[in-house]
């Protein structure tokens, strides 16, 4: 049927026809309305156009390389958090430590209506009694996180990694700071999609086998396999990262006290003069008070504009580029390096897969060349 003839058919009949053709293969491609009728864009009703946009936004297949890098960096950050926790396992989770189970239960009961027991049941740390058990569980958990980071059995290790990290967060939420909710968010979404479909040992082994079967030369690139699952996960991360920005902005501008220090332009001064946290001495800025105002309002402006501008294709690279120095400066001024790293990892979900793919191919080529030499 020609496109012209197709255009004369009622929309619903077109849709039914398209589905009828596809119904024999449930898992086969199911083209959307606009994809099935490319000439009909203008004939679509408003609701159908919205539906099309929705489908394109969520289900257009994309190269999973971005997701792969988000997995690697999230895994590394989670590993770092667990490594630093290894020094204080007994203090935070031991029965004789600072936060024995009874203390956590009391804290939950006071803090949240649901009580202490239900949430602590979700943490396997609640069932470990001796320092040996704690240490064994901790190092096994780190091993699983390492497998997840490397992309080995990713479907399984991603779920296990989420369980591991949530167990620590639920057991002692009073030692969690800004970074833990972001890590939980990233790990949760990475469980849902093909996080191991790129930049992983799983893929490397698969590709090696495929190359051997097809007798391809090492320099010959295999075709990229886009996945709609990767799109869904990346969109979830993108929206959630934007929500973090929006809420951070709202939390800043809605403060009370002696007047809002963010709106007065003083906030960064208070941040850099914290007596214990800053990594770098920025107090010289007191000689140029205007800089304090500029820095404070820049942070506010960035957090307000990021969720709006990052969706624009043209502005996205600029917004992402600005976010890097912004978070590095913030990390140096606040000492919250892991928080800044987590936000940057979340922002990575906005990076064009083609850009990351070319970087990845370039790195691989260099490694291959080095190996050959």
């Amino acid at each position, binding site marked *: 049927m020609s496109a012209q003839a197709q255009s004369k058919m009622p929309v619903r009949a077109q849709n039914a026809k398209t589905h009828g053709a596809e119904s024999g293969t449930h898992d086969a491609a199911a083209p959307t309305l606009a994809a099935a009728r490319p000439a009909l864009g203008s004939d679509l009703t408003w609701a159908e156009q919205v539906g099309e946009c929705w489908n394109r936004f969520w289900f257009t297949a994309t190269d999973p390389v971005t997701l792969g890098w988000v997995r690697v960096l999230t895994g590394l950050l989670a590993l770092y958090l667990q490594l630093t926790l290894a020094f204080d396992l007994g203090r935070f989770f031991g029965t004789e430590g600072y936060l024995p189970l009874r203390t956590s239960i009391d804290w939950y009961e006071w803090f949240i*209506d649901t009580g202490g027991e239900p949430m602590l049941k979700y943490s396997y740390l609640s069932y470990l009694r001796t320092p040996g058990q704690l240490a064994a569980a901790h190092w096994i958990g780190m091993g699983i996180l390492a497998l997840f980071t490397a992309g080995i059995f990713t479907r399984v290790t991603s779920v296990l990694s989420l369980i591991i990290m949530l167990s620590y967060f639920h057991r002692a939420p009073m030692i969690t700071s800004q970074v833990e909710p972001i890590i*939980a968010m990233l790990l949760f979404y990475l469980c849902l999609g093909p996080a191991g479909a790129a930049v992983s040992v799983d893929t490397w082994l698969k590709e090696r086998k495929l190359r051997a079967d097809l007798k391809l030369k090492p320099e010959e690139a295999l075709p990229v396999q886009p996945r709609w699952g990767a799109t869904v996960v990346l969109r979830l991360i993108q929206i959630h990262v934007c929500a973090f920005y929006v809420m951070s902005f709202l939390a800043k501008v809605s403060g009370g006290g002696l007047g809002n220090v963010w709106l007065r332009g003083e906030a960064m001064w208070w941040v850099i003069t914290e007596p214990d946290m800053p990594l770098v001495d920025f*107090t010289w800025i007191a000689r140029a008070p205007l800089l304090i105002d500029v820095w404070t309002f820049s942070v506010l402006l960035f957090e307000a504009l990021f969720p709006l501008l990052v969706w624009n294709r043209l502005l996205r690279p600029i917004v992402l580029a600005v976010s890097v120095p912004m978070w590095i400066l913030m990390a140096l001024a606040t000492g919250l390096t892991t928080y800044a790293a987590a936000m940057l990892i979340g922002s990575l979900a906005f990076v064009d897969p083609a850009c990351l793919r070319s970087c990845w191919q370039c790195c691989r080529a260099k490694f291959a060349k080095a190996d050959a030499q």
Partner: protein
Amino acid sequence: MKAPAANDSPAAMPSQNVRTVINFLLFVHFFSLGALLVLNHSSSELAQKLRRIPGYYLQVLFMDIDFDSGQPFRHRRYPMPEDPMAERDNPRDLPRGRRGRYHLTQGEVYDCAFFVEVEIPDPVYVQQRGGNYDGERRVVTLPELDISPKQRYLRYHTLAWEAARLNGQEDVDPILLGGIGGGVLREQNVPRNVPCRVRVWRMLSRTPEQVLHPNESVRDKWNKRAPAPDIGLEGTIFLDRNGQVQFSRSLPVNEVAPPPGSVAPSAEDAAPQSTPAAPPGV
């Protein structure tokens, strides 16, 4: 995003049924998140109920974060302070402020460094005195100042912050301070029934005039021009004969009644030490 690759199963869009299921799950997920975040500041009954419905789901995923406090939502109704200014000035009432994390600072009482201190008998001195726990004491401070990496410091910092916040509540038992103090006593092998002082204090940020003093930088964390530590809460703690932590808020040591059968320190031994220990390096 790249354009979809035609006729390639993983690359093509999922079937209508799969999309419907995913769309439904997306709606549930974002409704839950939205209800929690949008109704952050609302205190109406409807808002509380709307927030509570998805609360459990988000709690499990550790997504039920109050962006003000950085801690999980307190799902109970939260009374508003009668006098925010008085609250700011009185460290005992700090917790009602609930200001915390993602805003980084609001220049308020919570936006400063908190420390937990436990005064324990100095083991060397005790040995010299033949087991007498009178007199000389040493102070265990959390977070320890030389702790590294920074992430470890941040955890203790957060714990001290939360202890301060929680213990400002007059109607709440000192949950965390008791736990931390008890842990320190056990860790340092302090014998049972020996009362020790435990306190939370805060170190405020400095004004430009204080910072601009010559030869001084923010790395001199405890320089003498920094504001004096401000005691937020003080109490007495000891391990009873069963090893359980006993805590008494803001009472002199000699007023703490040890459990029956335990050897109580004499009034002289247990003289109150209300003067805060000087911060390290001062």
